[in-house]
C-alpha cells in the first residue's frame, strides 16, 4: 500500500514562481531545479523501506495540501512574545508562514550575521552560496529534496573566526494556517568561534492541517563550538519532519538537544558527521508522547575521522495510545581509529496501550575503538514509587516526580536554564500536574 502519493503542488511551476518572485540568482535557481528532479526521481518511502519501517507514514502525508503562503495575521503570537520576554537571547527572528514577522538583535560581537535567509542572500550571497546545501540537500531523502527545491525563507547565522557569541540567538517558527510549510536553518560557525542557537517550533491550534518540513544545516569549522536546541512544540494539527545534520571539522564540538513535545506526528533525523580528527558530538533527545502522538527519531553518529568522540542520550516517556520510535546508528569508518562512541536510549511506559520501539545499531569497521550502546524500556519503577508514597506522596504525585526526574537527566546536561525550565513546564502540563499550566 502506498501511504503517500505525489502532490501536484510540488511542481516545476512552483519552483519557477519562487525563483522569479524573489529574483533569485542563477546558481540557486539551478540548485532548486536539480532538487526538484531529485525529488521526482526518489520514490516515496513505504513501510518496507527499512529507515521508515516503524514510521506511521500516513501521518506524514502532504498529498492534497498546497504550499503554505502568507499567514492570515502577521502579528507575533502571544505565546512567542512571552517566551521572548522570558529569554536572555541576544537576537530573535520569528517566522510565520512565509513571512518574517519579527527580527530583533542586539549582538555585541562584531561580524556576526544573524538574519533571515532572504536578507542573507541579498547582503551575503557569497557566504550563503558557499555553504547552502552542503550538509542537508536533495540527495538525502524525499523530504530533504522537497525542502531543497521549494523553501521560501529561513534563518541564517554566521559567526566569524575566533568570535564568541555570548548569549543565545534563536528563531521561532510558527503558523496560523495549513498547507506544506518548509523551514530552513543554516548555521556556519567559523574556526574557533562559538555560538548557542535555539530553533523553536510552536503554534496555537488552528483548523487546517499543516505539514512542516524543516532542514537544519550546521557547519562547524575547526575548533568551532555550537550549542544547538531544537524545541518542537507545535499544536496537534501539525505533522513535523526535520533533518538536523552537522558536519564537524577538526576539534569542533557540537552539543545538541532535540525536544519533541507537540504536533500530531513528528520525525526528527539528528545526524553528525565527524570529519575532522578530535571532533566531538553530543546529541541529546527528550520526548513525551501522549494522546496518540507518534514520535519517530533517528540519530546518526558517523565517525569519518580518527579520534572522534560522540555520545547520544535519548530519553522519553509514552502515555495513552501513543508511540515512540527511536532508531540510532553509529558508523565507524575503516580508518577512524581511536573513536569513542556511545549511544543510550531509555523509555518509560506510562500506559498499557503505549508502544515503544528501540533500535540502537552499530556498524564498526575500525578496531581500535570504544563503542557501546544501551537501551532500556519499562514502567515507572515500583520500588521508587513505593518509597515516595511511604513518604506521604499520593500515587499520581509520585509518578509526576519520577517522570520529571527521569527526563531531567537530559535537561540537566543542557546548560540553558531558561530552556530547561520551559521544557519542564510543558512536561508537567502534559502530566497534568495541578497548578502548572503550560505558561507561555
Amino acid at each position, binding site marked *: 500500500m502506498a501511504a503517500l502519493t505525489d502532490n501536484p503542488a510540488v511542481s516545476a511551476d512552483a519552483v519557477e514562481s519562487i525563483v522569479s518572485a524573489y529574483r533569485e540568482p542563477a546558481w540557486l535557481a539551478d540548485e532548486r531545479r536539480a532538487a526538484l528532479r531529485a525529488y521526482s526521481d526518489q520514490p516515496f518511502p513505504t513501510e518496507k523501506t527499512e529507515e521508515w519501517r516503524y514510521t506511521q507514514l500516513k501521518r506524514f502525508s502532504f498529498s492534497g495540501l498546497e504550499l503554505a503562503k502568507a499567514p492570515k495575521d502577521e502579528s507575533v503570537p502571544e505565546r512567542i512574545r512571552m517566551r521572548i520576554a522570558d529569554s536572555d537571547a541576544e537576537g530573535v527572528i520569528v517566522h510565520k508562514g512565509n513571512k518574517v514577522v519579527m527580527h530583533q538583535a542586539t549582538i555585541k560581537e562584531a561580524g556576526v550575521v544573524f538574519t533571515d535567509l532572504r536578507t542573507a542572500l541579498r547582503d551575503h550571497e557569497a557566504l550563503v552560496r558557499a555553504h547552502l546545501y552542503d550538509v542537508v540537500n536533495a540527495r538525502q531523502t524525499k523530504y530533504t529534496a522537497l525542502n531543497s527545491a521549494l523553501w521560501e525563507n529561513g534563518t541564517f547565522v554566521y559567526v566569524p573566526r575566533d568570535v564568541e557569541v555570548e548569549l543565545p540567538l534563536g528563531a521561532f517558527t510558527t503558523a496560523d494556517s495549513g498547507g506544506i510549510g518548509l523551514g530552513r536553518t543554516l548555521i556556519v560557525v567559523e574556526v574557533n568561534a562559538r555560538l548557542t542557537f535555539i530553533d523553536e517550533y510552536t503554534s496555537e491550534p488552528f483548523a487546517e492541517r499543516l505539514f512542516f518540513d524543516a532542514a537544519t544545516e550546521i557547519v562547524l569549522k575547526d575548533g568551532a563550538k555550537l550549542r544547538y536546541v531544537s524545541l518542537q512544540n507545535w499544536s496537534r494539527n501539525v505533522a513535523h519532519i526535520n533533518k538536523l545534520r552537522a558536519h564537524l571539522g577538526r576539534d569542533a564540538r557540537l552539543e545538541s538537544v532535540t525536544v519533541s513535545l507537540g504536533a500530531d506526528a513528528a520525525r526528527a533525523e539528528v545526524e553528525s558527521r565527524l570529519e575532522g580528527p578530535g571532533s566531538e558530538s553530543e546529541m541529546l533527545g527528550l520526548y513525551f508522547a501522549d494522546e496518540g502522538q507518534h514520535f519517530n527519531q533517528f540519530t546518526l553518529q558517523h565517525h569519518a575521522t580518527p579520534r572522534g568522540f560522540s555520545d547520544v542520550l535519548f530519553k522519553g516517556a509514552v502515555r495513552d495510545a501513543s508511540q515512540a520510535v527511536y532508531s540510532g546508528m553509529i558508523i565507524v569508518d575503516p580508518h577512524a581509529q581511536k573513536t569513542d562512541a556511545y549511544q543510550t536510549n531509555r523509555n518509560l511506559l506510562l500506559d498499557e496501550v503505549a*508502544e*515503544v520501539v528501540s533500535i540502537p545499531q552499530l556498524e*564498526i569497521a575500525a*578496531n581500535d575503538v570504544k563503542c557501546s550502546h*544501551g*537501551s*532500556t524500556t519499562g514502567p515507572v519503577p515500583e520500588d521508587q514509587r513505593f518509597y515516595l508514597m511511604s513518604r506521604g506522596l499520593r500515587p499520581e504525585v509520585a509518578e509526576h516526580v519520577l517522570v520529571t526526574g527521569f527526563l531531567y537527566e537530559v535537561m540537566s546536561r543542557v546548560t540553558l536554564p531558561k530552556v530547561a525550565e520551559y521544557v519542564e513546564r510543558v512536561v508537567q502540563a502534559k502530566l497534568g500536574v495541578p497548578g502548572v499550566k503550560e505558561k507561555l
Partner: protein
Amino acid sequence: MSDLHTDTTQAVHPDAAKLEGMEHAKQYEFKLAEDYFFKSDRGLTKRVVEQISYMKNEPEWMLKFRLRAFEIAEKKGRPKWGPDLSDLNFDDIFFYVRPNEKQGTAGSWDDIPEDVRKTYQRLGVPAAEQRALAGVGAQYESEMVYHKLKAEWEKLGVIFLDTDTGLKEHPELFKEHFATVIPPEDNYFAAVNSAVWSGGSFVYVPEGVHVEVPLQAYFLLNAENIGQFERTLIIGAPGSKFHYIEGCTAPAYTSNSFHSGVIEIVCQENSHVRYSTIQNWSHNVYNLVTQRAMVHEHASMGWLDGNLGSKVTMKYPSTYLVGEGAHGEVLSIAFATDGQHQDAGAKVIHVAPNTTSSVVSKSISKGTGRSSYRGLVQVHEGATNARSNVECDALLLDENARTDTFPYIEINEKTAHVGHEATVSKLDDEQIFYLMTRGLAEDAAMALIVRGFLDPVAKELPLEYAVELNRLIELEMEGSVG
C-alpha cells in the same frame, strides 16, 4: 544400526567442484565420484520437488506440502536485507542428490584438503571421526556406544531418528507437529527448505522423561545428517528434560555451497529443552538456517548457537514464549575470520504473561571477518511482567575487521522490563603486555584473552565441546601476530 543407514536419502553433494563461480570448490580440488544413485535436475523447479518426494516414497500430504512450499518460495523471493548473497546462484545447485547405497562415496580421505585434515589432527579428533566429519567415512566407531545409548533411550520411550525415518515410523506424531513452528510462509529460505528438505533429526521425549546424556546428532552422523536441507523436528512432551546437540566444533567439510536447515522445537508445559549447535562449515558454504522454538507454560528453552565456519551465515534462533511463565535463553558465539560474514543473533517473542528471556552474544572478528548481531525482542500487549535482557559484546582483533549490532526492540506492554546493552572493543594492549611479562608468547596471550572473552558461553558447553572450542581458538589465533 544399519536400518538407520540403509534408507539413505541424501549425501553431501559431490559435484560442487564442477560448478562455476565456486572459488573454494576449485581451491579444494575435490575429486569426484560420478556413481551416484540418483541426481535431480539443476536448480529449484517443481519437477525437482516432485522427484525428491517420489524418490523418498513419501505420503501424499508431504508431496502437497512440498509443492505448496515451492510456490511460496517462488512468490516470496530472497530477503532484501542482511549479508550479500549475490554469489549464491540456485541454477547451479543440485537440490537433491541420492548417493549410491554404499556410503562414503563422496570422495576418499586422500582428497580431503590438507588444512582440514591437519585441523582434525590438531584437535585430536579420532581418525574414524575425522573421516565421518569429512563426509568420506563410513559410520564411525562410536557405533557401539550409540547402540548402548539407543537401547536405553528406547526403554524410556525416547524417539531419536533421522527425519525421513521419523516420518515413516511415526507418521501421526510427525504430522501433528511438522511445520507448526516454522510454516513455509515464514521466510524465503524456510520455504525453500520445506520444498526440498531431506535428513535432519526427529526427536520425541515422552512426558516426564529426563534424558541425562545429551542426544547427539553426532551419533547419527552420516552424509545425510550434514545434508544441505536438513529438517529437524524436536518435541519435548510435558515435564520432559533433555539436551540435544547438533554438529561439532571440528570443521565439517562439505563441497556443498548452500546449506539451509529448518529446526523446529516444541517445548510443551514444564519441559526443559536445550539445543546446542556449533557450525564449522568450510569457508565456501552459505549457511542460512531458520531455528525456532515454541515454548509453552512454564517450559524453558535454551539455545547455544556457535558460528565458526561458513562463508556467510544467517541464523537467528528464535524463541516464542507463548505460555505463561515460559523462559527462553540464547547464548551465541560467532568467530569471523578472513572473508567470513557471521550474521547471527536471536529473536525472542513474548506473548504470554510472566515470561522471561535472556540473550548473551559474544562475537570476534579477525582479519577481514565481519560479525553482525541481528536481534529482535518483541513484547506483545498482554504479556504482563515480561522481562528481557540482551547483552552483545564484540571483540575486534584486526584493523580490517568489522562488527555490527542491529537489535530491534518492540514493546507494546506497559509492565515489560526490557534492556539491551552492547559493547565493542579491541584486545587490550595492557592485558597482553601483562601476560607477556608473565612469560606468555604474544599469540598465546591473545588466545588466552579471547578464551576469557568467550568463557561465559564456553562454560555452558559440554566438556568435550569446550575443550575443542578452546583448541580451535588457539589454532585460529596462531600466526595472528605479524
